[in-house]
């Protein structure tokens, strides 16, 4: 691109539109975080459910895997931030929402462990839906918007579902809210990366 090339008014407007679109179309989301959390929550839900079915309640400790994944999440986030060549105002807002989600989940897990309230699964599903819907809404990313709504619909359904089947809703929620959107993001990221080579 040259500097002093004369521009007509139409060309100026076309250039502005083109550059704004170029910034918008730069897919920086690798989808790795979504895939990781989608897989972990799915795995924990399946093992926890099978533990209940077989009477091996020791398997419920699989949920500690979530704590083990937190340092991994920090490493992934730090690496992505280092690699990213630009930041948007949206990034700050999204970071705040997901950190709030992480803290809320940890606090609610503690509350659940200590007081064992009824319908804890329903509460977890409601909390899962909040950052997922917010991300889908802010980024205009339909799969996460649908995932967030699915979490809330599952929360409603869970109020009418007997235990232990309610445990299966965690699997569906993790797939719809994170794993499937993660796969879509990953596909878009790899496609964009291939296009840039």
């Amino acid at each position: 691109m040259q500097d002093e090339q004369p521009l007509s008014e139409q060309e100026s407007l076309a250039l502005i539109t083109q550059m704004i679109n170029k910034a918008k179309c730069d897919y920086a989301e690798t989808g790795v975080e979504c895939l990781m959390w989608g897989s972990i929550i799915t795995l924990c839900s399946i093992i926890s459910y099978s533990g209940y079915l077989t009477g091996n309640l020791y398997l419920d400790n699989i949920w500690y895997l979530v704590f083990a994944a937190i340092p991994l999440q920090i490493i992934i986030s730090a690496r992505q931030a280092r690699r990213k060549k630009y930041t948007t105002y949206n990034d700050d807002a999204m970071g705040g929402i997901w950190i709030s989600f992480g803290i809320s989940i940890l606090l609610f897990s503690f509350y659940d462990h200590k007081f064992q309230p009824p319908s804890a699964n329903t509460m977890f599903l409601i909390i899962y839906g909040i950052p997922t819907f917010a991300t889908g809404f802010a980024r205009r990313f339909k799969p996460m918007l649908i995932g967030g709504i699915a979490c809330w619909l599952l929360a409603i359904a869970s109020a009418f579902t007997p235990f232990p089947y309610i445990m299966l809703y965690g699997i569906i929620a993790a797939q719809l809210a994170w794993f499937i959107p993660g796969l879509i993001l990953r596909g878009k990221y790899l496609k964009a990366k291939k296009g840039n080579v």
Partner: protein
Amino acid sequence: MFKELDPILHSQLRLAVMSLLISVKEAEFTFIKEKTNATAGNLSVQVQKLKEAGYIDVVKEFKDNYPNTTCHITQAGIKAFEEYVKALQEYLKVGQNK
């Protein structure tokens, strides 16, 4: 009476840089270079002109032991860009009515 188009913005590369920076919070020099397909030398000169006009801020720091330049648009830059787009629209309206 038409407003004169801002000569700082009414150039291909500077306008491209401002259009990119208006869409993000901040961007690295390499990102701007990649998106505008400009040479590093030419881009440096135009970034300096925008900085001197007070339209962007340029921060030079080290990232992973390498020098890294980051640019972000200032409030004056946002105002100038908005006025430039408004002026363009005025010109285009008149062009369509002729």
